[in-house]
C-alpha cells in the first residue's frame, strides 16, 4: 500500500450547511476505524443547529490567527446513546474556556473519526466561531493523551460541559494527570461530557495537527454516498478515498476479551481463498489487519471493516459472526506518521513487530 500525503483541499474559506452533514457523517464514521462512537447520533443535532445558527464557516488553518481550542466529547459513546446530547453544551464549553485568556478565533475538532467528527462542528456552530479544517488526532483514538497537541501545549484549563446545565473547569493539572482526572470525573458526570481544552495558537495547529481532515472526511463521505447512489464504481470510490480494499470475507468468529486492552480479534475467511485467514484485532477501534500471518496494516493507519455490499462501516461493537465484510484501509494523516509515538500498536498494548513486514505482492 502506498501512503500518499493527504492535502487540505480547501481553496479558501467555505461554509458547511445542512446538505454537507450526511457526507461529514459518513466520512467521520469511516475515519473512526470502527470506534469513536456513532456519528449518525450527532447528524440531526448538527442539522438542527445549522437551521438555527446558519451555515458553519470552515477555515483553512492558515486563514486563522490568534488562539483556537479543541472541542468534542469525552466518555462512553454507548452511554451517549441513552443520555443524549442536546447541542448547546459544546458551545458552552468553548465559550467558558474562551473567557479564560486571549480571545479564541476558532474551534478545532478533537478527533475527526467517529461522533467527535461532528461534535467539533457543533461546538463551533453553537459558540459562533468558525471551524478549522484540521483535527487533533487525524482519525479516532481512545485516549486524550493521543492528541497530537499533547506535550506541545498545556491541556488545561479544560472545561467539561454537561447536557442541560453544569460546567466543570479543571485548572492547574499537568498534561500527564489531566486524562486521569477527566476519566475519574466522568462517572460522576453521567458517563460523558462535552469538552474544550488544549488552547493553542492557530499556527501550532497548522504545523502539528492533521490539516485538511474535515475536507478529507467530507470527500470520503461524498464518495461513499455517490457509490451508494450508483454514481461511482468501487475502484473509483477507493481512488477518491485514497483507500485499499483487497480482501473481503465472512466473519467466522469474534473473540472479545474483557478487562484489559487488547480487546478482541475478528477472524474472517477470505472469500477468494477459503483457506486464507484475515485477522483484524480491535481495541476500542480496529487496530491491525493480519492476513495469513503477514501484517498488512496497523495503527495509526485507519483499518475499517465495512459491509461487503453497502460499504457502511461496522463498528467493533457490532461486528458478529456470519457477517460478510470487506477490509478497507486508509493511510494515516501525515502528522501521525511524523509523530508516531504513543499512537502505534504499542499504545494499544499490542506487541509491535521487531522488523517490518513484507507485504505480499
Amino acid at each position, binding site marked *: 500500500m502506498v501512503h500518499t500525503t493527504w492535502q487540505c483541499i480547501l481553496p479558501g474559506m467555505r461554509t458547511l450547511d445542512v446538505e454537507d452533514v450526511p457526507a461529514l457523517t459518513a466520512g467521520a464514521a469511516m475515519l473512526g476505524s470502527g470506534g469513536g462512537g456513532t456519528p449518525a447520533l450527532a447528524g440531526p443535532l448538527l442539522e438542527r443547529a445549522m437551521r438555527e445558527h446558519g451555515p458553519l464557516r470552515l477555515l483553512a488553518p492558515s486563514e486563522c490567527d490568534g488562539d483556537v481550542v479543541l472541542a468534542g466529547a469525552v466518555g462512553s459513546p454507548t452511554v451517549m446513546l441513552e443520555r443524549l446530547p442536546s447541542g448547546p453544551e459544546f458551545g458552552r464549553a468553548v465559550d467558558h474556556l474562551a473567557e479564560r485568556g486571549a480571545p479564541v478565533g476558532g474551534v478545532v475538532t478533537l478527533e475527526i473519526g467517529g461522533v467527535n467528527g461532528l461534535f467539533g462542528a457543533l461546538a463551533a456552530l453553537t459558540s459562533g466561531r468558525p471551524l478549522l479544517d484540521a483535527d487533533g488526532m487525524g482519525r479516532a483514538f481512545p485516549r486524550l493523551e493521543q492528541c497530537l497537541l499533547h506535550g506541545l501545549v498545556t491541556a488545561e484549563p479544560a472545561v467539561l460541559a454537561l447536557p442541560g446545565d453544569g460546567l466543570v473547569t479543571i485548572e492547574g493539572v499537568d498534561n500527564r494527570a489531566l486524562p486521569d482526572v477527566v476519566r475519574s470525573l466522568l462517572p460522576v458526570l453521567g458517563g460523558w461530557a462535552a469538552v474544550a481544552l488544549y488552547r493553542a495558537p492557530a499556527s501550532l495547529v497548522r504545523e502539528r495537527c492533521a490539516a485538511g481532515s474535515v475536507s478529507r472526511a467530507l470527500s470520503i463521505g461524498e464518495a461513499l454516498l455517490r457509490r451508494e447512489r450508483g454514481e461511482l464504481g468501487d475502484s473509483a470510490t477507493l481512488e477518491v478515498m485514497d483507500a485499499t480494499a483487497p480482501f473481503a470475507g465472512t466473519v*467466522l*468468529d469474534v*473473540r472479545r*476479551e474483557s478487562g*484489559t486492552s*487488547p480487546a*478482541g*480479534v475478528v*477472524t474472517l475467511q477470505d472469500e477468494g481463498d477459503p*483457506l*486464507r*485467514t*484475515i*485477522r483484524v*484485532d480491535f481495541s476500542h477501534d480496529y487496530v*491491525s489487519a*493480519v492476513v*495469513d*500471518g*503477514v*501484517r498488512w496494516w496497523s495503527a495509526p493507519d485507519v483499518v475499517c471493516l465495512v459491509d461487503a455490499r453497502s460499504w457502511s462501516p461496522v463498528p467493533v461493537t457490532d461486528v458478529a459472526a456470519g457477517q460478510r465484510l470487506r477490509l478497507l484501509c486508509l493511510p494515516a494523516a501525515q502528522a501521525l506518521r511524523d509523530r508516531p509515538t504513543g499512537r502505534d500498536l504499542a499504545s494499544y*498494548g*499490542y*506487541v*509491535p*513487530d*521487531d*522488523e517490518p*513486514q513484507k507485504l505480499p505482492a
Partner: protein
Amino acid sequence: MTAVTVRDLADSPLLRHSTRLGDDRGLAAEVSNVVLAELGQAFPEAAPGTVVVLALQRHQSVDAAVDVTLRRARSWSVPAVVLAGATVLPLATRRLAARLALPVFVVAADVSTLSLMAELRDLVHAPDLHESTLLLGLADELTAVRGLDDLVEALRHQHDGGAVAVVTADGRVHGDLGDLTIERVTDVRSTRTVLAQGRVYLVHPLVTHGDAGGWIVLETAHGTARQLDRCRRLAALAAGPALGTVAREMVRRERHARERARVLAEVLHAPEQVGPDLAAAAADAGLALAGWHVGIHLRAPTSRLSGPLLADLESAVQREVPEIGPFVDRTDGWAAWLSQDAMPDPGRIRDFTGAVVRALGAATSQSLGDQISLGVGAPGRDAAGIALTLAQARQAALVASTSAPDDKVRVRVVQDLGASRLLLGWYGSGAFRDLADEMLVPLTALGDPDLVTTLAAYLDRACSASHTARYLGIHRNTVNQRISKAERVLSVSLTDPDTRLALQLALRAHRTPATTSD
C-alpha cells in the same frame, strides 16, 4: 539412535497433553535444537531444525504478533513452535497453523516455562549425547587398530547405519561397499554423499598433499541431515588413523615389489651363477627358482594399468592358478611364472594359459578394453630356464600386442608364433621401422587414424571389403571409399601384390612398439 522428530516431541510425556494446532503435516521434520523467544523479538539461533518456545505473557495469546511469529517461523524452517503460557487462542491463529502446516503446541500457563525448556532440551539433545558416546567409543577403539580391517571393524561398531568400507588408492576394498561401485568411490575428491540404488553413502577421501590416498565409505540408513553429520564426524575422526594405515601398507607393498624386481634382475643377469644368498633373497621375495618354469608376460599401457587394477589382476590370476608366483615389474610390463617339479607337457601349458586368460578376462574392467596382451613362454628349467621362458613370453606378448584385437585379452603362446617370430624380429628393427614410417608419412600426416586402421584391417583380411566392414562395424562403401582415399594419398595401387605386401609390413611395423630389452 535416529534424530528426534516433531512426532517424538508430540509423543513425549511433556507435550502429550498439550493442545496441538494444525494437522499431521510437519510431524516428520527433524529437530536439532530448542530456543526460547519472547513475542516480537527475533529468534536467537533459529537455524533450520530449531524448535521455538514462545513464552507468552498474560493476554498475549490474542496478540496478532503470535500469528506474525508463526509465519516467520515457517519462513525460517522452524519445525514446530511451542506456545508456553497460552490461554485459548483465537480462531485466526488456529487456522493459520493449519494453513502453514506448522505443528504448534499450546502449553497451559500452569506449566513452568523453565522446566519445559529444560526437559525439551534434554529430549532434543539426546541424539547429540548418543553421538558423543559413539565418537568417544571410536576414538578409544582407534588406539588399538593394527590394520584397515581392524579400522573398518571399529567403525562398524560405532556406526549404526549400514555398510562400512575403506578403499585404498590401489583399489583394495576393506569391508563392504554395499551397492556402490569402486569407480564411484574413487571419483570423489572431497567429502560428499553418493546415491546408489536408493541408498545414501557418505564418501570421505583420505587426502594427503592434495591426493586421495584412500576413501572411507559409510552408508546412512535414511540419509537424513543428522545422520550424514554423524557419519561426517565418524569419518573425520577415523581419517587420520586410516590414512596412516593406508600409507604404511602402500609403503610395505611398494618395498616388496621393488625387492622382487631387484632379485629377478640379478637372477636374469647371471642365471648360471645364482649363489646361496641370491637364492635365499629370491625365496624371501616369493620367487621360486628351482624346478621347471613356464613364464608369462603381461603388456598394457602403463597409464591404463594402474595400481588398483594390477592388484586385481594379480589376485585374480593367483586364485585361478595358485601355483603361479607373484607379478614382478619389468620395463614394458609385468612378468610371472608357473613353477613345478616335472616338466610341464603341452596340455598342462594349454590349461595354464587358458586359466590365466580366463582370470585376466574376468578381472579386466571395461575401461581397459582390449589393451591387455599376454605372452606365454616355453618351459625352462631352474634359473636359466626362468630367463629363457620370460624372454620368450615377452616376445610373444609383443607379437600379441600387434595382432588384431579379437578378444579382451590378446594372447600368444611362444610355440604358436611360427612365422610371426621371424617377422617380429624384422619389423621390430629400427631400420625397417624408419622405412615403414617414411612410407606411411603421407597417410599419417592426414591425422586421420580411421584411414590407417581401415587400411591395416583391409590388408589383414585379404583385401576383402565385406570382411573389413564387418570387422570394423562400418558400411562396405565406407571401407571402399577409405581404401580409395588411402591409395590416392599414398599414390599406390593395391592391385599390385608387392605394394600390398610392403604396405602390410609397414603397417605392422608402425603399430609394433620398438623392441627393448632389460
